[in-house]
């Protein structure tokens, strides 16, 4: 009867960042490990979207409410502010239209929690500088070649923060997750930060009146 705890450091952090008891949507929820943890530890009303059939099946076996769908296409269906928290963990880089997806996350959720790999990490920069090769970013998928990867929209922390600014999104807090799983609070935009950050986790909100108009 042991509670399932996510192994990924960013997921453990996200569990801490989600307030207890609300409605949560996990976009790209995988096999439902995070949702299950949130339901047992935070008593949330959990929902998920996952594109891959066998992962949706895994979620269903856990008794979770999950839709087989595509974040790029399905998020516009949901009403404004219909979730307290919307999570996008390690999936931003898989989106065809990450800007629209992020915009939708903050339309349907009071707050969005987004984790992504930082392409601005010094190793990635060094790979490009010294070896002249496209850096392979380690995500939950095994590292692949640049032409065979689901990571089609990688960005750096600075790229991400600029996009948030364009969309009128407020950064509430940021955390850096190291390769060893260590956590560090991310301050204001600083080039130094982005060099050492392997994964970034951001809590985002947007003032109600500037929510994308419909």
């Amino acid at each position: 009867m042991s509670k399932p705890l996510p192994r990924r450091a960013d997921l453990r952090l996200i569990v801490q960042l989600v307030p207890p008891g609300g409605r949560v949507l996990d976009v790209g929820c995988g096999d439902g490990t995070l949702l299950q943890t949130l339901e047992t530890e935070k008593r949330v009303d959990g929902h998920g979207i996952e594109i891959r059939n066998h992962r949706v099946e895994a979620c269903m076996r856990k008794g979770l409410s999950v839709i087989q769908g595509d974040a790029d296409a399905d998020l516009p269906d949901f009403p404004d502010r219909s979730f307290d928290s919307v999570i996008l963990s390690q999936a931003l880089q898989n989106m065809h239209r990450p800007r629209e997806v992020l915009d939708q996350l903050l339309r349907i959720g009071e707050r969005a929690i987004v984790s992504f790999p930082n392409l601005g990490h010094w190793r990635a920069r060094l790979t490009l500088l010294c070896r002249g090769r496209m850096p392979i970013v380690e995500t939950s998928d095994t590292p692949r070649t640049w032409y065979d990867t689901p990571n089609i929209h990688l960005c750096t922390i600075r790229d991400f923060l600029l996009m948030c600014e364009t969309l009128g999104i407020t950064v509430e807090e940021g955390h850096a997750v190291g390769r060893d799983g260590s956590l560090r609070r991310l301050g204001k935009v600083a080039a130094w930060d982005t060099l050492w950050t392997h994964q970034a986790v951001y809590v985002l909100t947007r003032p109600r009146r500037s929510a994308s108009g419909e």
Partner: protein
Amino acid sequence: MEIDTAGIDFAPIFTLDTKLKLQSQVELAGAKCAYQTYGTLNAERSNAIMICHGLTGDQYVSGTNPLTGRAGWWNHVVGPGLVFDTDRYFVICANVLGGCLGTTGPSTINPDTGQPWNMNFPVFTVADMVDLQVHLIDALGIDQLFAVIGASMGGMMALDWAVRHSERVFAAVPVAASWRHTAQNIAFHEVGRRAIAADANWHDGAYREHGVKPEKGLAAARMVAHITYLSETAFQEKFGRDLPRDSKLSFVLDPEFEVERYLDHQGKTFVRRFDAASYMYLTRAMDYFDLAARHDGDLAAVFRGVGTRFLVVSFTSDWLFPTAEARTVVRALNANAADVSFIEIPADYGHDSFLIESATDFHDVLEGFLDGTARRRGLKP
């Protein structure tokens, strides 16, 4: 000749002591509903699952069907320790209004005339079928069903249950279904009805009085319908262009290919267990089904305020009720931030995939959903 139901006891049969008001405004007196139950209703009366059968299905979901002598149509999932665990749940399956296995329909006697209803039976809808079942659970003392599940026409019923009686349905599982019958669906049904009506034994539906049965027409209707229930892959893999015995063309126009002989067999066995008039009326009820009609085509408005937990299931190879139709339902539910799960199960068999014993992915999904729903409902394991 009618289907040979002589000597079969369809008990238990529930009789409605008020009139059943149909969507057509006709009031049907003395409606009866034959049903089967499996398992035990718990003290809180909170563990009842209504299984809604498809167009030509029946209430014998598990155990042995007394008419065919064969196993119930969902025998492999309903029973102790199975997906619909009868040690845990109280499973109800009722022959639908207009059916021909004990429930009031065109083959039963019109109490006003003492004669079979035949074509004088009022045209009814999926909602009317559901309303008869609502009276049934009233009679069984059940305030709220733990779940309503159905595939195909049964899926339409599950949707209608959840929309019009949402407070009485904790969870709904429409499988291989849609929110409306499409033009193509209606077209196939019309071919079936036309085949029946073209049979010389049809006698404008009064075949009972003539002691005959439009067997050829009903068989042809079934053959057409059966094609729509399977995928092209299923047909190709099962039969290809196979010929029996000597594998040589006989240069005749009689059924020769294995696929023709198979369809012929499907037609012949069907007429032994199903009534032609029931088939006419039930296909019409499906044609009339359009959940969005009451809200001028706005499906999202239909689900407003519906608190039922949903699982929507489609199958990849189902071209009769394709995934796109199921997705439309899911999108309408999402527009209301409803509690909905959706999965498209990879399956090669076509629309009838829901009946296949080897569809273990589908069964695992159902089991997980029921289990998660039971936790939310506070049902003991």
